[in-house]
């Protein structure tokens, strides 16, 4: 009899534990969906439909991609850093979007999202394959410099004259930290998704305005690269 009572007590304790735990979320799933835009509209590839912001002519985009790394999420004093957090964001798909899903963030909720546009100096100087970092990929560059962080390629059309546009921005000093406070109600659903707009127009017309005729390419010139880095630092915004 005493044994049965003892067993029942243990069972009740276990049941109680599960009841308590089920009401309390220990981890949070989160999806960050990035939408590539040019201004207010989704990005259109391969068509001369955009005006050169700083000069004459129209331009088209054939490629736009960038590294997003060191993603970390914060709730109050607690934070979670995704391990091997190197994402290559590309938008050459039907929706012009790229999603990053973290199914189990070990936080009860998330109020701040932080990441780098670019690659941190340690990873940038390494040929180790981590996350989407791949030294045999198109983002690999000149190893005295590291990876390309942001790539935009296309062409500028002035009358019948078509000339190439090549913007490859790298150098460790051009990684830019970005931080967003999430509104309190954004994570209440069971499968929360945070939407962010990546506005390519800001890349050419942000802190500085670019005339593509005067500056058709940026590669290894550090001053030019910094100008574009200051522009892409503000190209991502939260969408509501």
């Amino acid at each position, binding site marked *: 009899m005493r044994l049965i009572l003892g067993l029942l007590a243990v069972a009740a304790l276990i049941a109680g534990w599960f009841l308590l735990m089920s009401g309390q979320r220990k981890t949070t799933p989160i999806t960050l969906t990035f939408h590539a835009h040019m201004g207010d509209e989704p990005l259109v*590839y*391969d068509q001369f439909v955009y005006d050169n912001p700083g000069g004459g002519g129209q331009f088209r985009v*054939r490629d736009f991609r960038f590294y997003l790394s060191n993603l970390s999420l914060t709730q109050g004093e607690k934070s979670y850093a995704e391990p091997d957090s190197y994402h*290559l964001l*590309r938008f*050459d798909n039907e929706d012009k979007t790229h999603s990053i899903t973290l199914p189990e963030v070990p936080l009860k909720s998330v109020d701040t999202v932080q990441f780098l546009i670019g690659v941190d100096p340690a990873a940038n100087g390494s*040929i180790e*394959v981590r996350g989407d970092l*791949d*030294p*045999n*990929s*198109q983002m*690999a*560059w*000149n*190893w005295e410099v590291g990876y390309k962080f942001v790539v935009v*390629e*296309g*062409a500028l059309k002035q009358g019948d004259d*078509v*000339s*190439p*546009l*090549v913007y*490859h921005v790298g150098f460790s000093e051009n990684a830019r930290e970005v931080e967003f406070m999430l509104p309190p109600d954004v994570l209440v659903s069971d499968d929360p998704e945070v939407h962010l707009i990546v506005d390519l127009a800001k890349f050419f017309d942000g802190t500085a305005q670019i005339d593509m005729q005067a500056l*058709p*390419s940026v*590669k*290894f*010139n550090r001053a*030019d690269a910094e100008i574009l880095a200051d522009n892409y630092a503000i190209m991502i915004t939260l969408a509501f």
Partner: protein
Amino acid sequence: MRWVLLILAAAGLAVAGWMNWDRTRHPVATPIADFSAPFVFGRFAVPPENPLTEEAFALGRHLFYDPILSGNNQVSCATCHVQALAFTDGRAKSPSLSGGELDFSAMSLANLLWGQERFFWDGRATSLEEQALIPIQHPDEMGQDIDALMAELEASGTYRRMFRQAYGAVTPENTAKALATFMRMLISSESKYDKYLRGEARLTAQEEHGRKLFMAHPDTKVSLRGGNCIDCHSQFLTSGFRDALDGFSNNGLDPDDTLPDGLMAVTGNPAHKGFFKVPTLRNIAVTAPYMHDGRFETLEDVMAHYNDGIVVSDTLSPLILEADNAPEAAKGTVGLRMTPEEIQAIIAFLHTLTDEAFLTNPKFSDPFEGGS
């Protein structure tokens, strides 16, 4: 005496039973054990439904070299993919069964586990398993009816046994899997460049100059000279890139009005017109002639094309159109405008990609000639 007979009978039954069981059971093939790949080649993926096994490799190698695969029993895969030529055939375009020539040049088969996961110059196959059966059935390549081939293989006790040990039944699917396994194992990683990357060899001053040029996109603004090869050929694999369709490009061979469809024939996207698969440059010194149609006979011809022979078309890579080592505007030509010394340095570097061990590896050779 009776006991001995009984025991012998029992043993006989056991052996017969085991033999029957062995014939019908699911094959237990041997995983390829000593398989390793250079760290710098990066990630690769083997389809889980076709793991690399010794039995599949042995079967694939036999099939690869056996003219039984063709309708007239005279053409094998190895007819157009010769080991000593890094599995090319030395021709601009391979001969067609009907007497003409095929549309494309035979591609080198090396390091297919890495780089672009689409096969053929226009990327029409999305796996090696899919690729393997296409030339066999193509009327101008091997002209074989797949059911007739299965009957021929089934009639051979050797092939029945090899299929059973590798996969089970003689089927088109298992034929494709075996050929894919053989091709996946064609790994070239003993060139001078590989030894240099492992710290086992030094490049000459000219080769090192060529390597630096290979890896650099030119930028006159900071006086950086470059051959721009790395914009399409990854630095360690020297093949096209793996991601999505990054391993295809229009490299300025033809003007818009004669530009072939290339990748556009597969994707339907006009932005892909004239795109062809960026090939590996491993063993490039032995795989002449060059380009998808074999139009260039020598590496000098190829370098001349990139140096001042680029033909502009709408889908030409902006990276090629923009890459120029000379600060002043070009007059009527498009290209890298490097010096003859720089061109020779790049060619010297390309020769460091030749892997004699690969070209003569007995494991990759014809099993019907001597060893097996």
